[in-house]
């Protein structure tokens, strides 16, 4: 089989893994070597699905001993199988890297023979890249559940980021859909990796000593293949950040690739909105100081389809607003819809030298359309501000959400379509109450 066919098969088999960041570590090659990494990460292209291409994302092999129901590579699937020779893949990586196509390699694999055998092959690719080419570019390697600890340790010393995929967010779903994997087999290496990262950090005597997975570890959860609610997934995510100090949890909307009575039918749409909401909430947990329990709870287990989690939280906590932009601390500013990390930091800087007004906020990148309902400038609200539930909801919903809202709760007369929110419609009022948590 020629390299074109191999690349096509092993790329197609790897593309459902969503993690493709190259962030978290700064470094450069030593004499004779090639490559560097930037902590902010660099995207080299964007595929037609809008996702960033940063790394050469391929499988070592798609030959698999396992039979996970949701997976294209499961052994019961009739599909062409192949494998990269370690040196072949290393050379391909270097040649792409020299031309600045990629930031490095993302290496995952199906399970050939056993987790250990597969990991040995992957380790060999990493060794050739690091030792023979002096490659200092980014490497993200997957740890296959069940791999021997020494091999995990070896991979961790060569890769920048390593990840163990959880895939299914509960033990029950794993048992049903991935009978060859268990919760224990996934969480154990995660725990081990976390400990190694902490230990090697403490043991390092010099600045130049090699680090264990310097860009940390991440994982991926598949959304929509199994029945877990947003609340359960978000709680799991939060625990993973806390317990295993993960750098990222990635969510992947499940795209049905196989007919199976246990799974959504082939052709049904992937739950992209759910995935998007989870990422929004994940962002709020990592950068905005929210906890999972603030965003969802036992009684509200699913995200609001019309409002993003931050807006949803805000309209359910109107008693905490407005905050004054000239006085409020950073963590309060962050809770205002329309103010993000960047604009909150700019506000802190700018208000040291001058009092801020609404015009100034606009210059700092604050989205006043949303923020105006939640802030004052030195005690004053924006001129002509209407704070009715109507006006607030309309300001907070995206155009797309408004359209969806309209389709879901249609009005009977054509004339009313033009003034969607002006007509006091009985039905819509009820929806508003739902949205703002009054019911």
């Amino acid at each position, binding site marked *: 089989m020629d390299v074109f066919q191999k690349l096509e098969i092993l790329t197609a088999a790897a*593309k459902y893994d969503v993690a493709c960041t190259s962030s978290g570590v700064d470094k450069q090659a030593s004499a004779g070597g*090639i490559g560097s990494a930037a902590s902010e990460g660099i995207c080299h*292209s964007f595929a037609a699905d*809008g996702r960033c291409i940063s790394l050469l994302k391929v499988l070592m092999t798609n030959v698999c001993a396992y039979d996970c129901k949701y997976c294209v590579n499961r052994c019961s699937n009739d599909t062409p199988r192949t494998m990269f020779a370690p040196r072949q893949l290393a050379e391909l990586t270097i040649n792409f890297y020299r*031309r*600045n196509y990629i930031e490095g390699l993302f290496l995952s694999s199906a399970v050939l023979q056993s987790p250990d055998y597969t990991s040995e092959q992957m380790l060999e690719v990493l060794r050739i890249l690091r030792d023979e080419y002096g490659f200092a570019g980014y490497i993200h390697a997957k740890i296959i559940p069940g791999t021997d600890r020494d091999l995990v340790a070896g991979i961790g010393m060569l890769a920048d980021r390593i990840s163990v995929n959880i895939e299914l967010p509960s033990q029950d779903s794993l048992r049903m859909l991935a009978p060859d994997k268990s919760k224990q087999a996934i969480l154990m290496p995660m725990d081990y990796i976390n400990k190694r990262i902490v230990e090697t950090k403490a043991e390092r005597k010099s600045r130049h000593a090699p680090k264990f997975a310097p860009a940390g570890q991440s994982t991926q959860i598949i959304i929509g293949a199994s029945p877990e609610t947003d609340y359960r997934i978000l709680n799991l995510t939060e625990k993973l950040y806390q317990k295993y100090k993960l750098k990222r949890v990635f969510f992947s909307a499940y*795209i049905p690739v196989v007919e199976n009575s246990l799974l959504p039918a082939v052709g049904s749409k992937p739950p992209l909105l759910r995935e998007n909401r989870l990422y929004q909430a994940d962002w709020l947990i990592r950068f905005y100081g929210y906890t999972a329990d603030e965003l969802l709870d036992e009684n509200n287990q699913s995200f609001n389809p019309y409002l993003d989690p931050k807006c949803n939280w805000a309209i359910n906590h109107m008693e905490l607003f407005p905050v004054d932009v000239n006085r409020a601390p950073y963590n309060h500013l962050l809770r205002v819809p329309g103010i993000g990390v960047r604009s909150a930091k700019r506000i802190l800087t700018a208000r040291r030298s001058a009092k*801020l007004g609404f015009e100034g906020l606009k210059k700092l990148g604050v989205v006043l359309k949303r923020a105006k309902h939640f802030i004052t400038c030195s005690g004053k609200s924006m001129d002509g501000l209407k704070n009715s539930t109507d006006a607030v909801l309309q300001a907070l919903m995206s155009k797309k959400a408004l359209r969806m809202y309209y389709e879901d709760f249609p009005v009977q007369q054509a004339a009313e379509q033009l003034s969607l929110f002006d007509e006091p419609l009985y039905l819509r009022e009820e929806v508003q109450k739902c949205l703002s948590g009054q019911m």
Partner: protein
Amino acid sequence: MPERSNVIYHYDGSFDGLLCCVFECYAKNEIPLEILSPEIARTTLFSGKEIITDPHKARRVLVSIPKRMGHDALNFVRNAYLTCLAQKELYILRFLRLGYRHGPSVMEMLTDEVVNTLFKAVNHLKKESHLLKGFLRFSVFENVLLGQIEPKNQVLPLLAKHFCQRYREERFFIYDKTHSMALVYKPYQFSIIRMESLLLSEADEEEKFFRELWRLFYDTIEVEGRHNPRCRMSHMPKRYWKHMTEFGDPDSRDGTKDFSSKKLKFRGSI
């Protein structure tokens, strides 16, 4: 504060030349109506005052900036000089005047019209340079890496460190078509030179082989069920596509032709 006068400064387009304009403005206690570089001056009929670049004067201004308003402000002004902002010279002059008056806190005056405009321009420069760290493509010609870009801002000085570290043992060459400049590197030194044009010879077999492999990877990695061309375009504006291996090269793929026919269709439907 001096009145805005009717005088127009002509300078040689260099950073030192611009600093001499600042010197002149303080020496004559006047604020010029315009500060024009040779490229802009050519297209206008205004006559004005020729500001001669005097290294001694430039140095005096250069030294005064970090002293009076901090190193951040100097870095900021150096970057501002590289942006594509219209009338950047005048904005830089007005920024420095603010800086001499207010000191380091000029960097906090984000809502001031001058400071804000320059900050946005510098952010644009930084963003473009960050994108090009990823979007730039090299071709290998006789073991030299050659790349071409068409940025709006002068990004080469910002790209230099990144690429020199990354390809430390290579020889490479990045041509900025917009500004007719090139970044040239061989181990372990680089320079940025003026260059009017760049002619590329035909790619050899090995180069074509890897281009094809890259295109194959690019096309295969898309998840069809999530097709979203608008999202791609917002992350990677079309003006960058021209020099990217995965789209360019009309010889082996009809990328460019395809775009134009789509555009026509789009126009037709309006």
